[in-house]
């Protein structure tokens, strides 16, 4: 096993240990933070699939987070409270939105793709802002968390956390297989040279679109979980700044390794918690840390780790 999967599994185990640790030191809030970490790790993973392996920098990815969240609100209002049904609905909505927006966006490349995905993200955002039935830009509170097989198991924070963790593990495992399978190699190929891919018989658009749709669906699942965690749904989830934060998480962790996406989400959420509790001007510190990472560790935290490991071996 190479370093990346090892790191990813270590992170998963670390997360799994949080609830007992929280119980031991008597601070149940740790579990809440860990839940948030895991939710964003799923979102970051989904982004890593297209950004890291397909060089498709989506600057509208938060839209899927929002779609997932609103799927919960809409389903709940119509009496569908089962988590898996809601996830299905979210994934379906995300797939539709991704297929349509992707079909248009994927005609462009590079910065143009960044901006056109931003445009679609903003359209989704403004759509929900004007959706009075669900509180417009104020959003709306959920009556309760989703149910599992008709039971309110998820009201328990620890149970909910392990549910999220299971989703994260599943997302990671699935994506790890995928990127190393035929599909993943083709996706990587389109990242490297589109022209060459066409010249050896591929239609890059199909693979990109498939990855784009899949990524949106996974992110929507993260949105379902986010809505459940906060028990609140609002267009703020899909603001462009949120998309930016997802990108930052990913870059901080390291692009195109999956483990980096998870690490980035964990560290970003953790740092925010830590620094915000420490100083009113925590953004300054966070900025300085980010800057230090980019300047001294080009491949993000995973790059740093890799170099440390390599240094240790030499």
């Amino acid at each position: 096993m190479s370093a990346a999967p090892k790191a990813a599994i270590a992170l998963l185990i670390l997360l799994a240990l949080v609830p007992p640790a929280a119980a031991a030191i008597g601070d149940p809030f740790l579990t809440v933070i860990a839940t948030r970490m895991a939710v964003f790790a799923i979102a970051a993973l989904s982004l890593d699939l297209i950004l890291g392996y397909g060089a498709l920098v989506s600057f509208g990815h938060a839209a899927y987070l929002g779609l997932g969240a609103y799927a919960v609100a809409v389903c709940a209002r119509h009496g569908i409270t089962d988590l898996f049904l809601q996830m299905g609905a979210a994934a379906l909505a995300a797939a539709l939105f991704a297929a349509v927006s992707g079909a248009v966006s994927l005609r462009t490349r590079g910065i143009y793709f960044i901006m056109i995905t931003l445009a679609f993200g903003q359209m989704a955002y403004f759509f929900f802002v004007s959706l009075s039935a669900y509180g417009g830009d104020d959003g709306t509170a959920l009556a309760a968390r989703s149910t599992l097989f008709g039971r309110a198991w998820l009201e328990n924070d620890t149970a909910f956390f392990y549910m999220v963790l299971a989703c994260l593990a599943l997302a990671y495992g699935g994506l790890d297989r995928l990127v190393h399978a035929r599909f993943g190699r083709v996706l990587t190929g389109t990242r490297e040279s589109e022209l060459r891919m066409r010249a050896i018989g591929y239609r890059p658009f199909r693979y990109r679109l498939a990855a784009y749709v899949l990524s949106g669906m996974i992110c929507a699942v993260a949105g379902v979980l986010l809505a459940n965690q906060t028990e609140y749904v609002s267009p703020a989830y899909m603001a462009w700044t949120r998309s930016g934060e997802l990108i930052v998480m990913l870059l901080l962790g390291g692009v195109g390794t999956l483990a980096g996406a998870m690490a980035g989400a964990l560290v970003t959420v953790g740092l925010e918690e830590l620094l915000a509790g420490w100083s009113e001007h925590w953004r300054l510190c966070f900025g300085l840390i980010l800057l230090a990472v980019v300047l001294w560790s080009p491949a993000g935290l995973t790059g740093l780790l890799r170099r440390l490991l390599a240094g240790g071996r030499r």
Partner: protein
Amino acid sequence: MTLLAVRDLRKSYGALAVTDGLSLDVAEGELHAIIGPNGAGKTTLIAQLSGQLAPDSGSVTFDGTDITRTDMASRVRAGLARSFQITTLMPAMTALENVALAVQGRSGSSFRFWRPVAAEAALNDQAMTCLAQVGLADRADRPAAAMSHGEKRQLELAVALACRPRLLLLDEPLAGTGPQEAERLVALLEALKGQVTMVLIEHDMAAVFALADRISVLVYGQIVASGGPEEIRQDPAVRAAYLGEEAC
């Protein structure tokens, strides 16, 4: 039998007619060289034959089917592959991965999400064979980005070969390779002759005259002469416009 038939192909950039009513037949099994001055439109022709560029008018027929409007991928699947004059590879991937991807392209669906591709022996074996053919066997695990210019040129050819085409469009495959590697590649093309039909664009006259069954001379969008190597070598107009003294 004519494998590739080009009729009255035209392509202009503004006032510049890069392909100017060009017609060309390539017979099955032959190695057809196209020579001509820089900027004559050779690469542009290949681009149109391979589907990278759409011609303004005219038609391209491959194996009896009109492919003028089909996309690159379908042409490759129909058996028409190309190499690029300006090296076009997957830089972050290793030489083996570059070639294996081409093998994968013609061996089953790529919408497979589960099985690790690196473990697919069939892909790797075929890819290794192609690498060995161009003399890059010992560079299999090196990322394309970390190869020297000449090595990249060799890899470029290996990728095209891995498509197992019926018609191979080669755009200056020997450019940038050293004398020894050029010799090896010429031998390789010689060996492929007969199995694969080839359109060869090359400024290395020694290779062209050694390999070609037929040569067409392309000057500013039009074919001005066509014939066997000897015929072309002796053609005074070709000598004046293109060959100069070197060919003697």
